[in-house]
């Protein structure tokens, strides 16, 4: 083993890796449990890559084959239901973990200097995850998928100036058709994975370079914990539990498949998007048709976009945190938005 290491080190230069492994530590304080969220998101992302790759062995894009191939995966291929259900559940949980990871990083002010770029890559990764969810939802080509995509792309279409072009770009035409399915498939299996791996690489590199951020005003308890093997062992326990949870959810609540998409049928009565789009979905349902001179749906869609933009730019807005001072206004604003979004999500879920 030592000789193999020496051989590789000689040719590849592994010493920096050994150095990193020996030096990497994780601070200890009363909020340090939140440091596990990034690793958990990474684990779920790897599950998505693995199960997604397996599903690609049988999935056949195209209006006459997509639905049939998904039905075959769930019904005929050994353990196909398991792989597909884990892919669905892991996607849902992945986005939930990312959301909490982002919210806790926000509240711990981890975005402050010098970690602005780490923050921006994280927000971009969340956007990529949402795009993964949205594009993947259409691929089974069942009725819910079809109408959810019709509505979702229509929302993009209401944006002033760029909406029409955006709609055409997403749908590959006026309506949701086989052209849309082809685009979403390419996006889901080629474009987004490349984007995610690039952003993730940069994000992780920056985390190694700057180390974990300790919130301003928090005192550390004792020596930092070594990452190898202490922290990683704790990570492994969490990952094992996550895997068990995914297997249980997949077995008890496997991914379903509705009737095949029919553009000439009416939308199913209880149509809803995935849970992470509940908040904008509910917002668009509740907003009046007209507010002053503006159309309600335009205002709702633009409002969410502005909120996202402010969130991404927070390292440059929160000047107090940049000076290592407490910035209560940003903490409170974060809680208000969080409670608002969770409230809308729960409301949509219950109705």
């Amino acid at each position: 083993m030592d000789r193999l290491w020496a051989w590789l080190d000689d040719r590849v230069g592994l010493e920096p890796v050994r150095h990193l492994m020996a030096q990497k530590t994780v601070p200890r304080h009363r909020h340090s449990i939140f440091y596990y969220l990034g690793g958990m998101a990474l684990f779920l992302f790897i599950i998505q890559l693995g199960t997604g790759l397996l599903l690609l062995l049988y999935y056949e894009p195209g209006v006459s084959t997509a639905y049939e191939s998904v039905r075959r995966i769930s019904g005929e291929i050994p353990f196909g239901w398991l792989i597909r259900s884990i892919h669905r559940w892991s996607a849902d949980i992945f986005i939930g973990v990312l959301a909490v990871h982002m919210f806790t990083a926000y509240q711990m002010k981890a975005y402050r200097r010098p970690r602005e770029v780490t923050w921006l890559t994280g927000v971009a990764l969340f956007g990529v995850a949402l795009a993964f969810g949205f594009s993947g939802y259409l691929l089974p080509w069942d009725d819910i998928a079809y109408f959810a995509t019709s509505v979702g792309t229509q929302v993009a279409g209401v944006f002033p100036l760029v909406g029409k072009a955006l709609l055409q770009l997403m749908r590959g035409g006026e309506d949701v058709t086989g052209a849309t399915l082809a685009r979403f498939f390419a996006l889901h299996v080629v474009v987004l994975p490349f984007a995610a791996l690039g952003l993730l690489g940069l994000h992780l590199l920056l985390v190694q370079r700057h180390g974990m951020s300790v919130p301003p005003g928090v005192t550390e308890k004792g020596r930092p914990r070594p990452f190898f093997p202490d922290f990683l062992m704790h990570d492994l326990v969490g990952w094992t539990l996550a895997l068990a949870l995914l297997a249980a959810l997949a077995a008890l609540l496997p991914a379903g498949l509705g009737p095949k998409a029919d553009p000439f049928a009416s939308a199913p009565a209880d149509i809803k998007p995935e849970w992470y789009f509940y908040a904008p979905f509910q917002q668009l349902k509740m907003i009046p048709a007209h507010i002053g001179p503006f159309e309600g749906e335009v205002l709702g869609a633009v409002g969410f976009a502005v909120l996202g933009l402010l969130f991404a730019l927070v390292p440059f807005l929160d000047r107090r945190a940049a000076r290592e001072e407490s910035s209560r206004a940003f903490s409170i604003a974060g809680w208000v938005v969080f409670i608002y979004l969770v409230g809308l999500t729960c409301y949509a879920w219950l109705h």
Partner: protein
Amino acid sequence: MDEHDRPLSPADPTPAGRRSFLDWLLGLSAFGTAAAIVYPVVHFVFPPPRPKGRAKGAVLAAQTSELAPGSGKVFPLGTRPAILVHTPDDKWRAFTAKCTHLSCTVTYRDDMNMIWCPCHDGRFDLTGKNVAGPPPRPLAEFTVVLKGDEVYVTEEAERG
């Protein structure tokens, strides 16, 4: 120094028996987890045989008027191509159209009165027997039924 800071080293005071038992238990769990992942994945990767996507029955291969004596045509029989031949002595025969050499699709050559595979010049006579070239076996034959001016071919009564 809290409990987490205690170094894990062979000098640890945990009794050796308990330690090796825990190691064994951990290894077993790791193996079990790995097996629970590998088993479904391996089975998933190999697809089950596709059920024949049709009832075993007759396929309308051609109208009698389509094929003069001394001609043939390739038609789909289920998921595979088959060849219907109207022989010069006015008999109807049907065979699989996949050459027994390397699975190219054969054709009828009226200049030779033979079934001929263009890929490697394999030749079959009009009973499906391999008579020249590389094909190692005769073509499997199907049953032909004439009903009025329609020619039906059934796969189930395959001979040869």
